[in-house]
């Protein structure tokens, strides 16, 4: 065996030490899958073995679960659903359940000694042993996080966990993918014992000697599940669970529904049947485009990007010790905080010292919160805050490795800041402009070193939003890109890289989302429908809410600016008048002045402003399922379509960056895998046909671009054409 070391002690206790060669963490690879049955066979048949312990040879823990890399590549291939392939898929997925079932019914006692974490399939292996002992270390996590990437625990997790800790507890843990530490796990009942670190193996052996032929609770005679769906106390867990799940997920996540079904159907039958049910739902889930897209985007791509996958090769790692943030408004304040948290010496510059201090106070507020929640010591918080130096003088910018300019969206002011800051910078330092709409190449004209100039688009609130959109101006050098990526990774954000244009990628697509909501309003669709549809499509908020958040007057100003910039090329939309009336005549600016598409009462939740129907008469007051499906499609497709246009214009060059940017940047329906994955999931050809149909009904904004038509013609996908390998080759 390659992945397990075998030892037999003088008491006849076999110790199998899980240790996948060449990896820092054990995962369940194809090789492991091959060896597990051998272990079971050995325990069962070797008369010298009285009992067995599974443990790990890695300091990192016991096992982090299945190898999603392997799974992802399998997932990408199969789209056929012929009966034979389904059967084969079931057999493949059920093999792990068979092995673990034979382990727990092998007739001899098996224990699991957990010095470190056990997640996903790792925990599922542990649950199939008769006794789990864990080291007392609050940092060690035990959980089934599969649902976070659109999967379900497929190695008995949905069956053994509810039988150990109850349906309701198991449902919460599995649906949310949350982990527990050893003490919590013991209190819940899925870890049998907690001992001092380093003592788990000894404790396991001790237990084995005292318990020679253990049987799982569910295999004991007379075992009965207490909280099945038709037991007195069990019904509400399902009735309530189904409702909460619908409320939270809008039914968009197949894995979540299937987890509930595994619990519901599995808990009512004996373990062997229960595991078959789980395996079927596992295959069913894996076959959905949602699971495939989610594994790729939320797991594989996230992992790649957070390791700097876009970083141009051939440049040494850029050490960033000092960064100047210019402009201490909400964005600048947030950037200062994340920098200080990453240990970066930060100069926070504003036109007045009061302004700069106000920006710093934001960090103090967040740090105080951490201290009060016990997440940080006062000393650490003080040291962190001390990293931020407020100033009004550009002299303090001297020695900065990186500048983040976060002043008002005004070309003249930005140009002035650029000049003043650059005067203080060393030759290799990077100047980053945090702008959400203004083209970088234009801004870089103010720079004497445009090759060091790059757009660094943060998202608000900076401390919560994980994305940074790096925008390359025409002259931005590859070295600057590498340095900027090093900066973004240092502050623990995920960078995507795009090329320059008005609104770049993210702001431009968000604009189409809001725009489509406004178009619906213009058509006389009842505002409640528009808002509910937005959320049901998987967006974090409805388009009218979002417009209220970004401020209607800002939307209006941007429209006016765009009108001015584009002149005759500007295409008026039916709602331009609505926005103008709201902003100019009625002073309804959005949340910031307490009135926009919504009213914001001092107490209670916001309510849609009834007066909107006086401006736009409601013509569509009901929303039957067909209309609902079409409106959801419009909300999502318009964003993916604009994404395709960004590819054609060269703003985007990577499907991965498009997807991650959309999910992290503005919460685009995660179950689709992102704006590019959505099109691949639908199929480019079908997407084009559907967009053509929408264009015929709602206007040219839905007309597919030439790129999409070409891809449809050639049968291409975004990941085929703009996959990460291609990007690397092009670079």
């Amino acid at each position, binding site marked *: 065996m390659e992945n397990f070391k075998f030892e037999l002690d003088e008491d006849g206790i076999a110790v199998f030490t899980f240790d996948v060669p060449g990896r820092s963490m054990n995962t369940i690879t194809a090789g492991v899958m091959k060896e597990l049955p051998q272990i079971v066979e050995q325990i069962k048949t070797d008369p010298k073995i009285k009992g067995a312990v599974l443990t790990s040879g890695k300091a990192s823990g016991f096992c982090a679960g299945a190898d999603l890399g392997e799974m992802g590549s399998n997932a990408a291939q199969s789209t056929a659903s012929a009966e034979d392939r389904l059967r084969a898929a079931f057999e493949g997925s059920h093999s792990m359940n068979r092995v673990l079932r034979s382990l727990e019914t092998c007739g001899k006692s098996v224990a699991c000694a957990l010095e470190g974490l056990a997640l996903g399939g790792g925990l599922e292996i542990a649950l199939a042993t008769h006794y789990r002992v864990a080291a007392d270390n609050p940092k060690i996590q035990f959980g089934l996080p599969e649902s976070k990437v659109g999967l379900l625990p497929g190695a008995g997790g949905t069956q053994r966990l509810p039988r150990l800790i109850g349906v309701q507890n198991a449902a919460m843990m599995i649906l949310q993918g949350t982990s527990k530490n050893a003490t919590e796990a013991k209190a819940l009942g899925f870890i049998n014992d907690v001992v001092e670190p380093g003592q788990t193996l000894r404790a396991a052996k001790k237990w084995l000697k005292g318990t020679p032929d253990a049987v799982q609770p569910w295999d004991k005679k007379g075992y009965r599940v207490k909280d099945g769906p038709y037991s007195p106390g069990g019904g509400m867990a399902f009735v309530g669970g189904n409702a909460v*799940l619908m409320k939270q997920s809008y039914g968009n996540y197949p894995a979540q529904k299937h987890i509930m*079904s595994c619990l519901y159907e599995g808990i009512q039958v004996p373990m062997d049947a229960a595991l078959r049910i789980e395996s079927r739902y596992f295959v069913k889930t894996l076959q959905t485009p949602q699971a495939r897209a989610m594994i790729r985007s939320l797991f594989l791509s996230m992992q790649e990007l957070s390791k700097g996958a876009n970083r141009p090769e051939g440049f040494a790692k850029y050490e960033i010790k000092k960064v100047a943030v210019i402009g201490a408004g909400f964005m600048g304040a947030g950037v200062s905080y994340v920098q200080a948290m990453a240990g970066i010496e930060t100069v926070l510059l504003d036109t007045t010292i009061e302004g700069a201090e106000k920006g710093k106070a934001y960090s103090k507020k967040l740090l105080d919160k951490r201290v009060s929640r016990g997440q940080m010591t006062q000393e650490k918080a003080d040291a962190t805050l001390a990293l931020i130096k407020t100033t009004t003088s550009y002299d303090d910018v001297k020695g900065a490795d990186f500048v983040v300019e976060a002043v008002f969206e005004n070309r003249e002011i930005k140009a002035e800041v650029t000049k003043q800051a650059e005067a203080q910078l060393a030759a290799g330092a990077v100047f980053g402009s945090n702008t959400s709409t203004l083209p970088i190449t234009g801004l870089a004209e103010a720079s004497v070193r445009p090759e060091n100039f790059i757009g660094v688009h943060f998202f608000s609130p900076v401390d919560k939003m994980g994305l940074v959109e790096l925008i390359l101006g025409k002259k931005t050098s590859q070295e600057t890109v590498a340095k900027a990526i090093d900066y973004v990774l240092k502050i623990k954000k995920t960078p995507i890289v795009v090329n320059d244009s008005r609104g770049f990628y993210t702001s431009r697509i968000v604009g189409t989302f809001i725009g489509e909501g406004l178009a619906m309003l213009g058509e006389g669709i009842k505002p409640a429908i528009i808002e*509910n549809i937005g959320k049901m499509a998987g967006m974090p908020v409805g388009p009218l809410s979002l417009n209220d958040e970004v401020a209607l007057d800002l939307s209006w100003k941007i429209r006016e600016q765009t009108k001015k910039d584009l002149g005759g090329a500007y295409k008026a939309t039916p709602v331009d008048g609505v926005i103008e009336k709201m902003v100019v005549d009625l002073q309804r600016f959005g949340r910031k002045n307490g009135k926009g598409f919504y009213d914001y009462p001092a107490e209670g939740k916001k309510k849609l402003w009834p007066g909107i129907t006086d401006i736009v008469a409601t013509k569509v007051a009901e929303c039957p399922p067909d209309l609902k499906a079409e409106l959801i499609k419009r909300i999502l497709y318009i964003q993916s379509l604009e994404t395709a246009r960004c590819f054609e214009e060269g703003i985007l060059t990577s499907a991965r960056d498009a997807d991650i940017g959309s999910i992290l940047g503005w919460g685009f329906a995660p179950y689709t895998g992102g704006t590019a994955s959505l099109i691949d999931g639908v199929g480019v050809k079908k997407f084009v046909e559907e967009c053509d149909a929408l264009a015929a009904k709602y206007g040219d904004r839905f007309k597919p671009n030439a790129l999409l038509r070409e891809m449809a013609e050639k049968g291409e996908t975004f990941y085929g054409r703009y996959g990460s390998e291609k990007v690397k080759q092009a670079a």
Partner: protein
Amino acid sequence: MSEAYIFDAVRTPRGKGKSTGTLHEVTALSLATQVLQAIRDRNNLDTSKVDDVVFGCVSPVGEQGGDITRIAVINADYAESVAGVQIDRFCASGLEACNMAAAKVKSGEADMVIGGGVESMSRIPMGAAGGSWATDPTIAMKSYFTPQGVGADLIATKYGFTRTDVDAYAVQSQQRAAAAWKEGRFKKSIVPVKDQLGLTLLDRDEHMRPDTTMQSLGSLEPAFTVQGEQMPGFDEVIKQRYPEVEDVMHVHHAGNSSGIVDGASAVLIGTKEMGKALGLKARAKILGGASIGSEPAIMLTGPEFVTAKLLKKLGMTTKDIDLWELNEAFASVVLRWVQALELDMAKVNVNGGAIAMGHPLGATGGMIVGTMVDELERADKERALITLCVGAGMGTAMVIERV
């Protein structure tokens, strides 16, 4: 094809459906037995001529399980040859039982059948029979399962009925029921429930609150706010089926919803010929019956559609109906039905309904058939339409004509 006639109808008074209710100490079997005995005795019925008994019962578990109808037939000392079947169409079970009885007669399968139903809600609580709709994730989520109370609140929200509207309707139900009792309008049908000694235990509907006013109702908290807005939050579920709703207004409470009660009903249905042979006088003719499925999440809008379906089938319009009876599951259900069909409230539920007197699930349909037979005779009217809203989105209806 034969015609189906109603020869008689009886019902128990309705006891409060809780442990302090008068009928709580009476078994469901006894309730069913007593109505069967009453309809036999007052008609001097040769039970060997009865082919079958169809009773509705919505929670057929425990003492109500195991085909309670057949067991009641035996217990009532009917001829051994009389069959019995228990059926469940949720709240319309009792009316469905009568429709099925009529269908057996019309098809020629049977000559004399008893329809009706039984439910002791105090002894076998609502929901005791379980069911997969709310629990099984595959169907609960797909169909946006939402409890009926939230569905009723959604009807009020969607069709514009305020708390004042639903409370006003509830007050009217109480007043009409009180007046009907005062004038003895139910006396033809009511058979007092007897105890083990044969002494009368209950001879009046004990759920009524004739002194109900807008003020007294106004003090009641809405009943479905918590399950709708908080835990688990069904408002957000049903809004996914009805995105046009921004917020569900919770207007229903115990005072404008049907009461939980115990009771039983029986309706004697047969061919004219068999009636003649048994010396019975037909009181009404069953012109037709129908059932329909409607959108399940809002659940309770079926009456509108089943009424339209049945009237169309009979070649009638709303003008052909003199009296309208819709079970008062919730005030908004009646208000929506009246609004959708543009009915005259003066002809609707003229003697009050389940808000005042209670809704013994499986028995109610048979009870309100009896109420309409009595009222057609008393008020000298021709035709009545009887209907109920039904769980999981259905409607069941029957049209009868005085003979």
